[in-house]
């Protein structure tokens, strides 16, 4: 064990810091929209080899050799500077690794670059009204007709569908095959005739996710990734990609630091709430979870760096539940600190963004939003099944076989 960085990595960190002095942008560029500024900066960061390191240069990445420590340094320094790094959009984070593993050369050339720049937005068409946790039961149909797929059915909880130019989705293309073997992974232009997007209003009041209806939608036959009927394996492969499993504690730390500031600014009995023994206990208790996440992250990326990921499989499996629960603890404490201000409705501009806001209404928004991760991307109850069965070897649930 040695928590000091080697000279090579210290030098690397220095160079990243120097690079990050270029954020925020100055001069004429400073007046552009935030999105435009981020795009400009991200392009520079790709050229500097700091962003999209695992993506080949011919597709718009920076193609750097894998180095878990450098990756960590980049995450730390970009976080510290508040600078735009790898996009965490569905396209950049989920589609691109899938295409790199299973896509044809033509698909990679066509889709990866605009997904990385954000010029083309992607949404994920997985869940259906009858297929949530039991995703492989999905029924949305894809029928091959000549050189086109004809799509019929419905997707739901499709985040960002209203802004997306493209969808990657799972469709049942082999109706006679067994459940998991009848699915294909298709790429769907959202402007194709027959697609209708209907927004769903969220508990918090905003409109982020949608229903998407398909009525005789025709897309080219070549818009399939991987082999017919193997879409399930294609979609799973990127989920279990080891690098993606390493937890990211920065959001939690940021929220916790905000919480401490909130405790300083709110009053209890005429004194700053942070002087209240009960609040101090709560804060220190939550920090125990935050520090756990930070040190577990160190342990996990060391395992990645050593090529010993198998030694950290259990904590990696637990990252999602752990970060969801910890964030909820932070939000519950903030809600306590708000007192009667907890009744305030979120402001319009706070609903449209995941960026943190630490006004009272901003905290109310975050408090409500913190329910989302317990459901999206594999509900906590399903995660607990996975931890119990794959992490601890407990017998699988009895399944009714059709």
């Amino acid at each position, binding site marked *: 064990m040695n928590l000091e960085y080697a000279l090579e990595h210290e030098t690397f960190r220095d160079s990243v810091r120097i690079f990050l002095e270029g954020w925020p942008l100055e001069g004429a560029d400073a007046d552009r929209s935030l999105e435009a500024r981020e795009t400009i900066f991200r392009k520079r960061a790709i050229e500097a080899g700091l962003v999209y390191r695992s993506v080949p240069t011919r597709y718009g990445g920076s193609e750097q050799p894998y180095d878990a420590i450098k990756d960590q340094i980049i995450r730390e320094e970009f976080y510290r500077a508040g600078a735009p790094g790898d996009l965490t959009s569905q396209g950049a984070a989920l589609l691109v690794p899938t295409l790199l593993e299973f896509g044809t050369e033509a698909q990679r050339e066509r889709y990866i670059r605009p997904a990385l720049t954000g010029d083309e937005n992607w949404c994920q068409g997985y869940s259906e009204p009858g297929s949530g946790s039991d995703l492989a039961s999905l029924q949305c149909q894809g029928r091959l007709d000549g050189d086109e797929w004809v799509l019929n059915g419905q997707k739901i909880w499709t985040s960002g569908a209203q802004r997306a130019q493209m969808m990657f989705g799972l469709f049942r293309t082999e109706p006679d095959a067994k459940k998991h073997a009848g699915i294909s992974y298709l790429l769907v232009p959202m402007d194709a005739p027959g697609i209708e997007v209907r927004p769903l209003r969220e508990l918090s009041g905003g409109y982020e996710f949608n229903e998407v209806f398909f009525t005789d939608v025709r897309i080219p036959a070549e818009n399939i990734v991987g082999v017919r009927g193997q879409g399930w394996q294609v979609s799973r492969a990127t989920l279990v990609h080891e690098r993606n499993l390493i937890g990211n504690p920065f959001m939690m730390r940021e929220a916790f630091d905000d919480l401490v500031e909130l405790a300083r600014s709110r009053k209890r009995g005429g004194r700053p709430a942070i002087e209240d023994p009960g609040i101090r206990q709560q804060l220190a208790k939550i920090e125990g979870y935050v520090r756990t996440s930070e040190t577990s992250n160190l342990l996990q990326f060391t395992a990645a760096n050593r090529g010993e990921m198998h030694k950290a499989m259990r904590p990696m499996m637990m990252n999602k539940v752990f970060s969801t629960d910890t964030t909820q603890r932070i939000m519950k404490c903030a809600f306590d600190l708000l007192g009667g201000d907890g009744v305030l409705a979120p402001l319009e501009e706070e609903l449209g963004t995941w960026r943190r806001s630490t006004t009272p209404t901003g905290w109310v928004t975050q408090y409500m939003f913190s329910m989302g991760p317990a459901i999206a991307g594999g509900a906590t109850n399903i995660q607990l099944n996975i931890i119990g069965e794959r992490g*601890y070897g407990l017998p699988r649930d009895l399944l009714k076989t059709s």
Partner: protein
Amino acid sequence: MDFGLSEEQELLQETIRGFAQNECPTTRLRELFDAGFGYDPALWTAFAEMGVAGLIAAEEFGGAGLELLDLALVAEILGETALPVPFLGHSLAVLGVSLLGSEAQRSSILPALAGGEQIATVALQEGDLGWAPRDWTVKADGDRISGVKTIVTHAKLADRILVGLQGGRLAWVDAKADGVEIETVDGVDRTRPFATVTFSGAPAEILHAGAGSSEQLTNAAAVLLAADAFGAASKLIDLDVAYSQSREQFGQPIGQFQAIKHTIARIGTELEPTRGLWWYAAYALDHLPEQASRAASIAKAHISERAMSVARESVELHGGYGFTWECEVQIWFKRIMFDRCFLGTPDQHRERCAELAGW
């Protein structure tokens, strides 16, 4: 940057685990536990022969010269195996003398401890809540000390006792000397028996001139207790998994029911990711002094409390059997009770975290 164990450290843990399984299997552990004394002199002798008694003593004094992380790695396995040996008090005594003893004191005291010829323990706690150096009230009058210390582990066996004094100083005392009264107290954790020790003008050698502070000693104690609790709670989860795979109700193993499966996944998720928390705190003791106090207190508060909740769930997961003396869950349940309550409760350590953060 490498936050992982070396091959030597993994081997050290395997060696201790193998020793415990061979020399003190559960049947033997039960005998010692039921006898109420929880100590086997032959076990300690054999344990000390592995070089563990002086793990962190400098090599010039016959020790292995290792770090506090190594000591904590041993503590984890002792928690996992509930090995009834006076390791905790003895190791802390070695550390205290190494930190605060003069060159002459270290060279006269440490070799016998490092070789295991003498057993030592520490008398730090006072009353039910006094644990930190600033809480200590035992007074020194020249080379005589007076006052009362509680929860002195393995005091009846100890040849020497390291005593925390008012003002954070430490004194080295012969446990058999006049003016030292050792009153055994019946504790829940029979793997670590303890006593209340009253010093009435007992002859003592005051440690001085060392570079360290007694704060470092109590920080180390907090980390060792956290590591022990982590090991003990890991053992309980292993027992939970094994039981829920073999116990059947309604024609299936109970581990197939989500009520059981999710409970195990939950307590696992509370515990497993905390491994890095005590690793980090142990590493900080030697390498990141400015972070050491806070890291130690967070580890002690968080892990001992998580482990306690694992222990309570483990009793429940074993049903009626879990509530019996016969079921081995009770051994680790009580080991964790001790780890949680000794030398600062979670509340006390959290308040210390708050103070150190300037909240």
